[in-house]
């Protein structure tokens, strides 16, 4: 047959190195600068005066920050748990059953939120909650935010779970049934453990997406429902201090730790 071509070594392409360096700089320099200035001892964000943990101390004593962090955690954890459960069921219902009419349509509906501009979803959600508050007198307080977050988290949770399910060998289910496991035991002992890494990735993605959502939260949030992104946004409209840098750095660390943990868990399960 045809001669097999040697795989292209991307590193020898002209301009590869400089492109890579530019991309990395654009991506990470702002973040590094932000982190660096969180250790600034002075109180101007752009003027370095000396190293100190002063602003971390300020941030950790800031009640507004803590209340925002609390709201964020409540919303992110609730939305993650609900969205991941729904996404798991949806993924099972769309891969482990006989193909049914409307399967493709259901898939579209589930993933559409990924394609709709977030501001559109935000306005729609706001109108929706305004409507039910006006007509039915219903207001779920922070529940509104949880519902809104759950909705946009579902497709993020769904993707990795579905991918994992599709990779999974269905003869394993047959093997379990063959070895006297009724369906629910097959699910608990075989399907669920093998699906766990997918569920973890889905949950981690949901959490991150909910954790730093701004647009929808900004529109839907009622009084006293400030989340961390909203809090930061409010702070930078005033004269900024490195406290904001400290808070942002803490946020970043939480994200990194989460992603790292979910990555390690996935890696361990895969083995």
């Amino acid at each position, binding site marked *: 047959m045809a001669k097999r071509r040697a795989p292209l070594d991307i590193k020898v392409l002209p301009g590869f190195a400089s492109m890579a360096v530019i991309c990395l700089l654009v991506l990470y320099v702002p973040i590094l600068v932000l982190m660096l200035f969180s250790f600034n001892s002075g109180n101007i964000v752009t003027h370095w005066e000396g190293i100190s943990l002063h602003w971390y101390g300020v941030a950790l004593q800031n009640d507004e920050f803590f209340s925002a962090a609390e709201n964020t955690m409540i919303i992110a954890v609730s939305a993650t748990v609900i969205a991941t459960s729904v996404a798991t069921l949806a993924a099972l219902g769309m891969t482990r059953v006989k193909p049914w009419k409307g399967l493709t349509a259901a898939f579209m509906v589930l993933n559409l939120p990924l394609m709709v501009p977030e501001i559109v979803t935000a306005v729609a959600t706001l109108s929706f909650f305004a409507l039910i508050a006006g007509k039915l007198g219903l207001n779920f307080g922070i529940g509104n935010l949880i519902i809104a977050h759950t909705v946009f988290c579902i497709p993020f949770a769904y993707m990795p779970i579905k991918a994992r399910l599709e990779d999974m*060998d269905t*003869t*394993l289910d*047959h*093997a*379990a*049934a*063959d*070895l*006297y*496991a*009724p369906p629910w*035991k097959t699910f608990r*002992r*075989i399907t669920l*453990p*093998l699906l766990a890494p997918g569920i973890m990735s889905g949950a981690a993605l949901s959490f991150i997406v909910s954790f730093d959502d701004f647009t929808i939260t900004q529109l839907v949030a009622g009084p006293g429902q400030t989340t961390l992104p909203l809090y930061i946004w409010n702070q930078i409209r005033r004269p900024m201090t490195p406290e904001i840098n400290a808070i942002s750095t803490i946020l970043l660390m939480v994200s990194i730790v989460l992603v790292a943990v979910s990555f390690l868990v996935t890696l361990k*399960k895969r*083995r």
Partner: protein
Amino acid sequence: MQAAKLGAETSPREREGAAQEAAPVISIREVSKVFGQGVAAFTALDRVQIDIGQNEFFTLLGPSGCGKTTLLRLIAGFDYPTMGEIRLFGQDIARQPPFKRPINTVFQNYALFPHMTVGQNVGFGLEMLGRPKAEIAGRVDEMLRLVRMEALKDRRTSEISGGQQQRVALARALAPQPKVLLLDEPLSALDYKLRKEMQIELKRLQHETGITFIFVTHDQEEALTMSDRIAVMSGGRVLQIGSAHDIYERPTERFVANFIGETNFLEGQVQGGGSVALDAGSVVPALPPEGFAPSGRVTVVIRPEHARLVPSGTAGSLAGTVSNAVYFGTDTHYHVTLGDGSEFMVRQQNSRASASHEIGAPVGVAIDEGAARMLRD
């Protein structure tokens, strides 16, 4: 050669065969399986009828797509027949889900649970049956000893070789002591040497456990060497069931004769007294298949090792000319063109005494006594 054949006529295996009819473990009654509906309907199994006895090594043999896996899936319970019954000790189980059937499967790709150790895999069935922990532990060790895998009990299944995975799959399926073990081409993923080893191993396991094995293969050699009885399948139908010897020496249909080993087909006219006047010019005695009374035109089948080349003009031989000779070391295959233009192959043992024949030379083909058999088609 003749003597061996006559001896086999009443081999213990066939006497066993008679006992099997008395009390089949598994009895497949008129089972049909149709996939799809209307114009897209496809009959994967067509009124299959098989009885399989206690302690039998039974093989389903047939070309790709003939319905072997489909039949196995129906027995295991992964799918249900469109029509017919599958009886286990006389009780119809055709509609029972797989987890209620005392039947276990060795899957072609092994289907070991990747998140469990070798030991946990082997114990899974017993665990699902709710057996006490101590019993499970003992049985797992026993099974692993049986397949010579005790040392690897705590390994993950991804950390053992293909042949070892095969053994674990076997141990896992045998551990709950099923009434029937189903094996779907379990050796096809192994290399030649390992396959030969596992063939012997499988026979040993079947012998030691006394469990009925239903084995699927499309490898005729594997089927002939391992099976007590073989069902030859084609296009969803069972064409013939019998011992390896039966299937090889007494095929009833052209497909069976062709699928297993090399063979010669000769056309002819049935004459009285169990003989056929061959178009190629001689009259040979030939037996019809059981329960079949032929008349008119028939096809006669003769295995290449049941004919000899004799000097041209020998009485009772078929006249022809050598068209090709292929040397195989221990024997030589002579292709002879007969009077009616048909090709006939003779397999002749090479010995110092046997004469070699030039291509183009006129020869006679003498057929061994009782070697010719009429086919049903």
